[in-house]
């Protein structure tokens, strides 16, 4: 790849203007291409001061307590590093070994510290754990409201009610996952009409699926399948 292409792609990557596929492609290529990795570091230096345009917001106190709980579960930093980064580090070690052999063979000097640092940055900006899946569940026909749904890697679902959501006292909204190619939705739990609910360890399909919400009798569908109208739905979700 030419230097100009590297510059363009590195700048756009750091700027945040790329779509998901383009971001993945730049990450993957930067892991192989020291020039691109170095260009990303340079663009980070140039643009990072822009964060000062965002007014500071204090995070909720619960963020630290959650973080402490996570840390308690982790082993020492070194052990955790090995656990989380084993695949990339093995690949990196192998590639470095191969590169070193080529370099020695050709009698060329070892790569510069800047390039090594650049490679490290790209390694460190890779995802350490699976990202939660996020989707909006919106009215399928008319109406208002919906839910912001976050599906964690362990199957926990956080459902945040958005806008005006109403049903009668003897009804509940029930969340379903419909796997691609299936006609049988899987029940995931009852949804709140205000604030947040956590549906623990829900049976989220591993294949692509859409989320549906039906209006059910109080306590949820008695049959294990939707009995009321499907009122809300999401776009197809890939995990």
């Amino acid at each position: 790849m030419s230097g100009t292409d590297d510059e363009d792609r590195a700048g756009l990557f750091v700027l945040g203007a790329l779509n998901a596929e383009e971001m993945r492609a730049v990450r993957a290529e930067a892991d192989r291409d020291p020039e691109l990795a170095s260009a990303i570091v340079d663009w980070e230096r140039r643009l990072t001061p822009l964060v000062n345009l965002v007014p500071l917001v204090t995070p909720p106190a619960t963020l630290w307590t959650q973080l402490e709980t996570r840390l308690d579960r982790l082993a020492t930093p070194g052990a955790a590093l090995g656990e989380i980064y084993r695949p990339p580090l093995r690949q990196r070690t192998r590639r470095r070994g191969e590169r070193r052999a080529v370099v020695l063979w050709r009698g060329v000097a070892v790569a510069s510290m800047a390039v090594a640092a650049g490679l490290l940055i790209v390694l460190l900006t890779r995802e350490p754990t699976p990202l939660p899946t996020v989707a909006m569940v919106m009215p399928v026909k008319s109406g208002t409201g919906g839910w912001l749904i976050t599906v964690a890697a362990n199957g926990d679902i956080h459902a945040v009610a958005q806008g005006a959501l109403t049903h009668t006292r003897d009804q509940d909204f029930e969340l379903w996952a419909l796997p691609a190619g299936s006609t049988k939705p899987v029940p995931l739990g009852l949804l709140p009409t205000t604030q947040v609910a956590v549906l623990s360890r829900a049976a989220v399909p591993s294949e692509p699926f859409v989320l549906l919400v039906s209006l059910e009798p109080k306590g949820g569908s008695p049959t294990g399948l939707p009995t009321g109208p499907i009122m809300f739905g999401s776009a197809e979700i890939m995990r």
Partner: protein
Amino acid sequence: MTINAGEPGSEILLERCAAGDRAAFRALYDRHSARLYSVALRITRHANLASDTVQEAFIQIWQNARLYDRSRGAPEAWMIGLTRYRALDLVRRAGPALIPLEDQQAADAVESLAPLDDAADGRALKQCLERLDPNRRRLVILAFVEGFSHAELSVQFVIPLGTIKSTIRRSLAALKECLAA
């Protein structure tokens, strides 16, 4: 971010984190969490998603503290990068249509570049941004601060996608040239 005299710098705190020092990690959190949370909140536009993003970023910081290399820049820039990329991944996965561009704070962010005066390396960037045409400057800032993709900017400004892409590419090239001068 203010560091009082006598307090260890963030590099020192990272070194201590690498040795498993939880007190150093707490100090690092106290010093940088508001900045990281603000950045994540601006991009994800949702408090829960911002909290998740920052939590994961700090886990990465704890786990990778010993790999931090000062040659790549200040510790805060490294931590901001971890947070921004994670937030961008999250909103890109949700898709542009799924997280509505509901707030209008975006406009506020581009009106004044004064906060750059007090930031490290901010003054030169401010001067170079001011040399850009205002519309170009707006696109660059919205992409970085709000995490707007080419496609989202195209929809928001009702400008063809190809024009958005070429305009941003030219703007970045101009910024790079100006900053190198």
